[in-house]
């Protein structure tokens, strides 16, 4: 297992390097001057040169690239933001925390909702509850999260004022005791988590429903049923366990999608996460931040995939890592 994990990590390093190299090329070859936003007509035009120097944009592209790569690999230094001079790695790491919080909460929310409703639908298969749920889930599966977000924000936050419309915590968060802080987080996270999690839960729902139906009809379940095992035991012990396995294989694919989704949700709910950092960095051509954020995003995806694979092989002893090609 350990050697497998090491092998996977080694395999993913070229992926990351290719990714960030492409990112580097894209941003440096694109037209326009990131320094121009710091200029105004009252400044002497030589200031442009000074800015170019300050940002290290005067060297030839390959020299810039080698310099940058050396810094990243040997010093873990992604440079400083053009915008505010802060170290890019620090900015991006502090932005990763809210994103992870949002993503993990949404994933848990989606799993709970998807599994629960999937079981109900499978038990009441083709009856009214199943049909209603399947139609509902089709709706959520097809709903763009930004629209869901705007609607939730408009209704529950702006119109009704039940939930805060932005940020992860209240201003007086630090004044609260631990239970108050927890409640504060929950209060702020409910709408974003629903926005990000609901469309995802629809995916999980489909897998669970199909898996459960298959499992419930399988011979060994029918046999256990004949032996008089209780229905709840059957549901949770036998069927669910088996239908969870394909779900875990989906988790790996879900992670890039979660990050992409978080980007939009963070913009809507003004959350200080990686996605919003990326959006504003792209708009302001803040090269170091763009590079640091993309690198972190790639690494997150790869680590997430690895975790999903490891969990997968732990849950299903039959498979044991063999499926690496599929994931």
């Amino acid at each position, binding site marked *: 297992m350990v050697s497998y994990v090491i092998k996977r990590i080694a395999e993913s390093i070229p992926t990351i390097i290719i990714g960030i190299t492409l990112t580097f090329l894209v941003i440096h070859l*694109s*037209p*326009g*001057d*990131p*320094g*121009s*936003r*710091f*200029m*105004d*007509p*009252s*400044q*002497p*035009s*030589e*200031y*442009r040169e*000074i*800015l170019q120097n*300050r940002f290290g944009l005067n060297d030839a592209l390959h020299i810039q690239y080698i310099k940058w790569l050396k810094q990243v690999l040997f010093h873990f230094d992604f440079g*400083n933001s053009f*915008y*505010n*001079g*802060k*170290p890019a790695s620090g*900015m991006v790491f*502090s*932005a990763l925390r809210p994103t992870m919080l949002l993503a993990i909460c949404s994933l848990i929310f989606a799993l709970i909702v998807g599994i629960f409703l999937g079981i109900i639908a499978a038990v009441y298969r083709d009856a009214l509850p199943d049909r209603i749920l399947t139609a509902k889930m089709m709706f959520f599966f097809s709903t763009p999260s930004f629209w869901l977000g705007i609607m939730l*924000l408009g209704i529950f*936050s*702006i119109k009704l*004022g039940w939930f*805060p*419309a*932005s*940020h*992860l*915590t209240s*201003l*007086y968060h630090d*004044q609260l005791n631990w239970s108050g802080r927890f409640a504060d987080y929950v209060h702020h996270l409910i709408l974003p988590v629903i926005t990000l999690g609901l469309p995802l839960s629809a995916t999980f729902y489909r897998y669970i429903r199909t898996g459960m139906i298959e499992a419930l009809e399988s011979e060994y379940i029918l046999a256990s049923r004949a032996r008089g095992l209780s229905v709840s035991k059957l549901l949770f012990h036998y069927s669910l366990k088996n239908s969870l396995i394909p779900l875990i294989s989906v988790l790996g694919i879900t992670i890039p999608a979660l990050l992409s989704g978080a980007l939009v949700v963070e*913009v*809507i*709910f*003004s959350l*200080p996460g990686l996605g*919003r*950092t990326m959006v*504003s960095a792209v*708009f*302001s*051509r803040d090269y170091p931040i763009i590079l640091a954020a993309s690198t972190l995003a790639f690494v997150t995806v790869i680590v997430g995939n690895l975790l999903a694979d490891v969990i997968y092989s732990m849950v299903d002893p039959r498979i044991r890592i063999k499926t690496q090609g599929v994931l």
Partner: protein
Amino acid sequence: MKSLFYFCLICAILLIYSCDGGKKVSRRSTSEFNPIKIVNGGTLVVGIRAEPESLNPLLALSQTSRNIISLVFRRLADINEDLRTFTPVLAKNWTFSPDSLSITFNLKTDVLWHDGMPFSAADIVFTYQMQTDPAIGWDGISFKETIRSVDALDDSTVVFLFHRKSPAMLMDAVEGYILPEHILASVSSEDMHKAEFNRRPVGTGPFKFQGWKDQQTITLVRNNSYYETGKPHLDRIIFKVVPDNINLLSQLKSGEVDLVESLYPRDFQALSAKWEQGQSNIRPVSYLGRRYDFIGWNLIDPDHYRQKLKQEDNSLPIEDYILPNRFFGSRKVRSALTMALDREALTNAVNYGMAIPMHGPVPLILNAYNEAANVHWPYDPQQALRILSEEGWSDTDKDGILDKDGIPFEFELITESGNTRWEQAATIIQDQLAKIGVHVSPRLVEPALLYGKLLPLKEFDAVLIGWVVGLTMDYAPLFHSSSFFTPFHFTGYYSSKYDSLDDASKKSFNPAVIQKYYDEIAGLLSHDLPYTWLYYRQECSAIHVRFKNVTIDKRGMFINPEDWWVPVKERSRIDKLFEG
């Protein structure tokens, strides 16, 4: 050269409060000026759309950064509401030398930096060195051009020596916040942009920097050892980042945010309506701001210009670079396009009435402004069509678009992406010009490309953007031939008459003569139309009514925050949470 425009400072104060709003406030709080009732405490939450880029006065560019800096740092003296006289701040007083070539400042001696170190004359000298260091690139560097040297006579006396006599000497001397030498002396000017200081500033102002949560909040707290004893009254000021406008507005309404400096006019009007009906605690405040929008035409042919630039021959006269643009090379065409625009409708639509149509170059806020000097191009599409047909533009192929020599009158109007007002204005202009058969394609370009490439290389047809004006102003970077190749002279306007007027105005010291030159410049530019000026905007701000003693005028929102206070019985939930 900037300082020669000293007369710009002598400006009329326009619209401080929107009249009705102002009246109501005074009615509601008749007792707020009674000093006995002033109590300390309370928290002000300021909603901001983007994080400040830096809290270092040398590097700050955005309005947000400047606002926060104005609370943490102090100048030698602050300009008064009349934009003519100054109130001492860090200086106790000052005297001009008999030859009027130097000013001697006597400094306050009881001022402490926020870290407890005493403030001294060395800080003033150090600040001057930093401000004039080209590697740092302070954006106010032109203020210091007239200064020869700054010397500390002793710990509390500083002398500013000038190259020549000018009416703006005091202004030039006091411009810029004073920096702590004991902290910044160890930072090289190349590393200034990534100094720790930029994120945890130490100043002498009424509020101390306390903390900065990335992308969330910046907290300032009361400086208990502020040199004006008893001030400030507020416990803390929190700047809260809320990028989304809807969020910001809803938080303002719900009391989560107390102050927003720059509201969208549409939201401002809605707030004002509620305020006037007495249904709201949010006091809307509007005043003439510093921003105007315009269309810049490219007067020369971009391809020809690029070819000439490629020759890299510095000896070529400017005329060689100029091949008139096939559309906008002709002044008459520009005037026709201007007449085809319904500026009144455009102004009102995109600003919801919170702007004034603008016909000439001089910002309304300056007293050099003289509407009578401008050439007025009325909204008259018929006349515009007539002029265009005189210029050879007519719809010969009956496709609804004017053409000349087989070239249809089609061009791109570029504007900065992400600015709703400009996007809307461009779309309206497209519609208005379509009515006379001119086909405009608006194109949104992100700023780095627009200001970094398209404008500096004059690679565009027409551009719709805006300028922010300072209290001094100078048109040379925009229109004078000496700046023909610099990034902001993107229209390619070249007029020897303008050059001579500009030069003449800078040589004169007589305010009446300068005003005359200025009127002539206004007349010339509004006749030649390198720009078509669209409108001058009013600032739309709002603050919760529980804050008393608030002065807001064209100098901005944060003129006297050390005087603001909140009566105990009006304290909000947030005020109490921080106290309890």
